[in-house]
């Protein structure tokens, strides 16, 4: 492997992990808001 391939590996791992940190909490937040939504709908329909 030449040096640029190592650089790509390192920067790539960095990008993947940062992407995970970007996406995971947003998914969790979306799920929580959806739960609030659904719970309220369940309570409103008798």
């Amino acid at each position, binding site marked *: 492997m030449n040096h640029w391939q*190592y*650089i790509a590996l390192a*920067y790539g791992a960095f990008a993947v992990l940062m992407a995970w940190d*970007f996406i995971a909490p947003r998914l969790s937040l979306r799920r*929580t808001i959806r739960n609030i939504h659904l719970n309220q709908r369940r309570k409103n329909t008798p």
Partner: protein
Amino acid sequence: MNSIVLWFNQTGSPPRFDAFAARWTSVCFLIATVLLAIGVYAALAVVPADYKQGESFRILYIHVPAAWMSLMIFVIMALQSAIALIWRIKLCELIAMASAPIGALFTAVTLISGAVWGKPTWGTWWTWDPRLTSELVLLFLYLGVIGLYSAIDDRRAAARAAGFLAIIGVVNVPIVHFAVTWWNTLHQGETIRLIGPSKMDGSMLWPLLVLVAATKFWYLGSVLLRTRALNLQQESRKQWAIERYGVQS
């Protein structure tokens, strides 16, 4: 009560914090992304190659900011946990627990980038020297905090227990930092100092500083977002949450 204390008091309330985080998360991420773009571009294309190590030293621009963040976040986590345990402030518990995965992530980046840098430069992916080993121990400490937090059902008791673990574990942070001075290791000594002249030339230093700032803003954005998520999870049955996120139209 002076205005700063008042601000802290008000923002600590769950609904206020939710609004605060919702607004500032995007700002922090935007700044972080811009700085990241500038820093990474400079690190890869602008900075000249090192005369001894060649191109692979560019990995330093990822490795060093990530390493500093892995240490800083653990200290913040321990501090927030201590505040939460002493004054029983719920938001500080949440900030501490939200910081743990971010810190683990930066520690993983540090270890991976270090290994990838080590192979072409010193011929080995890994060595069991004190700095690398204590950084690996730091990763296990993060995972322990995350694991303990998720294993206890009562969320507040879980945050207190995991926070206490973080406080005990913060002892490892000075060990990581001083490992290069206390032992003779493969890892190089201090090149960049906060006080006094650094051994790195200015033309190579500035992208590093840009990326250090970028990771700090990224942490701020991410911790605000994750704390907001944790906060909302725990408050999802409260009136304010239902009013704000309930039936939209």
